[in-house]
């Protein structure tokens, strides 16, 4: 009797699980799965070609991997991925070290000052992406920047010097950090606030100093949040678009319009009108992002709940 009752309850919980996710599931299919499936479909079909009708639906001609080969052989393809690799290396290290560093400093520091600094750190994140890049166009021009003293430390006296090709990955990392770090600091701060006071107090009684408390107690307890940040920051990094696009437009062409893979996709879609080529590059980026995500999910057991 006890056994049947137990399975009965678990069965009820099962159905409840579906009830909690149903509304989300509908939106996920409508605005996530279907558009993604259509983009993948575009990547594997030809723009011009014989269409095949199955009942009322007509399908474009299957292209196999030819879109991937054509875009892969494009002379702008490899440089764009090289740019993004250098950018990612800088961006991820800067983001993880400084976001966690600042969140831990805020959490372990003067508690009453925490909301104040957290608000100020977040402020750039509340600006629209395009506005924030336009701000940086001015920040990076040594003749009009409030940072001219910092720029002159590097002996940059003109915008072309500041925007030399070799500097671009680091510059985009700084802009992305300026806009994005605050949001993650807010998230990590929320995560740290969820740690119970008892855990922290007992670690203190055991003689942990502030450093040990941060590294050995707090960080492991917010591991899932860190993994989530890494997955999204990696994917967002490979998809860099707004920063090079607007900086290129505002600096009158000092940044190539196909600097990043996502820009190349946009270029192919708008200048060549080939959405299929653009979609194949998006799928390339999806695959790269998924490889990183899979690795992180399995290593961190992110999906495990017991």
């Amino acid at each position, binding site marked *: 009797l006890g056994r049947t009752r137990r399975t009965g*309850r678990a069965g009820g*919980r099962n159905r*409840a*699980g*579906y*009830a*909690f*996710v149903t*509304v*989300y*599931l509908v*939106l*996920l299919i*409508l*605005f996530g*799965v*279907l*558009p*993604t499936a*259509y*983009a993948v479909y575009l990547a594997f079909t030809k723009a011009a070609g014989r269409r095949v009708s199955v009942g009322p639906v007509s399908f474009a001609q299957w292209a196999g991997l030819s879109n991937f080969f054509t875009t892969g052989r494009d002379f702008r393809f490899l440089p764009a991925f090289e740019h993004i690799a250098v950018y990612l290396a800088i961006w991820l290290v800067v983001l993880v070290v400084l976001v966690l560093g*600042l969140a831990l*400093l805020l959490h372990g*520091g*003067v508690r009453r000052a925490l909301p104040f*600094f957290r608000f*100020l*750190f977040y*402020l*750039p*994140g*509340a*600006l629209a992406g395009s*506005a924030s890049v336009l*701000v940086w166009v*001015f920040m990076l021009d040594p003749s*009009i920047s409030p940072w*001219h003293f910092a720029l002159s430390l590097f002996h940059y006296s003109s915008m072309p010097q500041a925007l030399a090709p070799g500097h671009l990955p680091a510059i985009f990392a700084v802009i992305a950090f*300026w806009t994005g770090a605050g*949001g993650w600091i*807010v998230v990590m701060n*929320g995560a740290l606030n*969820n740690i119970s006071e008892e855990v922290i107090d007992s670690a203190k009684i055991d003689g942990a100093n502030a450093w040990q408390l941060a590294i050995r107690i707090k960080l492991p307890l917010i591991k*899932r*949040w860190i993994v*989530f940040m890494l*997955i*999204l920051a990696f*994917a967002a990094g490979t*998809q860099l678009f707004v920063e090079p696009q607007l900086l290129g437009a505002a600096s009158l062409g000092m940044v190539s319009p196909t600097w990043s893979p*996502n820009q190349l996709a946009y270029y192919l879609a708008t200048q060549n009108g080939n*959405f299929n080529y*653009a979609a194949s590059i*998006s799928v390339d*980026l*999806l695959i790269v*992002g998924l490889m990183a*995500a899979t690795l992180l999910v399995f290593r961190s057991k992110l*999906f495990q*709940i017991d």
Partner: protein
Amino acid sequence: VGALLVWFIVMLAFTGFFVVPVIWLFLAPTKTDHQLVYWNPLALGSFHTFLRTWDEIYAFQAHELLVWLWNSARYSVGGVFLALACAVPAGYGLALTQFIGRKVLLSITLIVMIMPASALVLPLFLEMNLLHLSNSAWSVVLPFGFFPFGVYLSYIFFSSTIAKELLAAARVDGCNEWGVFRHVALPLARPIVALVGFFEFVSDWTNFSSPS
């Protein structure tokens, strides 16, 4: 005292990094083009210039700006309510109930989040046409309500913060599954509701690509 001093110096240094460009941005409309280039970057122009700048924007396309602001406001508020109603229960269900397809749902949500957003603009537009929703407020608010980032925030919160024993105790006390969520989990989840609502509002308010 030394540690406290270092702490404040580090905090103020980063505050400068984050805030100076924002201050510059707030001062920019008070200056003319000439002043922007030749004056000290952090100098205040004049209130008169600010008013004139504002008048020009305000007069643009017969007060179109007001329509834009009103659109942004109502779409964002609608988006926040819809996103909270979907994302928080979904995160709870994914973290604290077991059902077949749970990991598949987590994986698909992640894939959709990782897919470059730029690749989804055209498919979304075609889909809205197909559903005869383009040119209606729903074509903006419904996609706003889909907020996978919020689902993950809620999932991680519920899976790492709420003790299963607490929910089990409520069940023993006779709560049904909805009651457990509504009366036990949700009151504890205030911080995450605030966080998801906040991020959703900012992302809607500053969203550019999907409505256009």
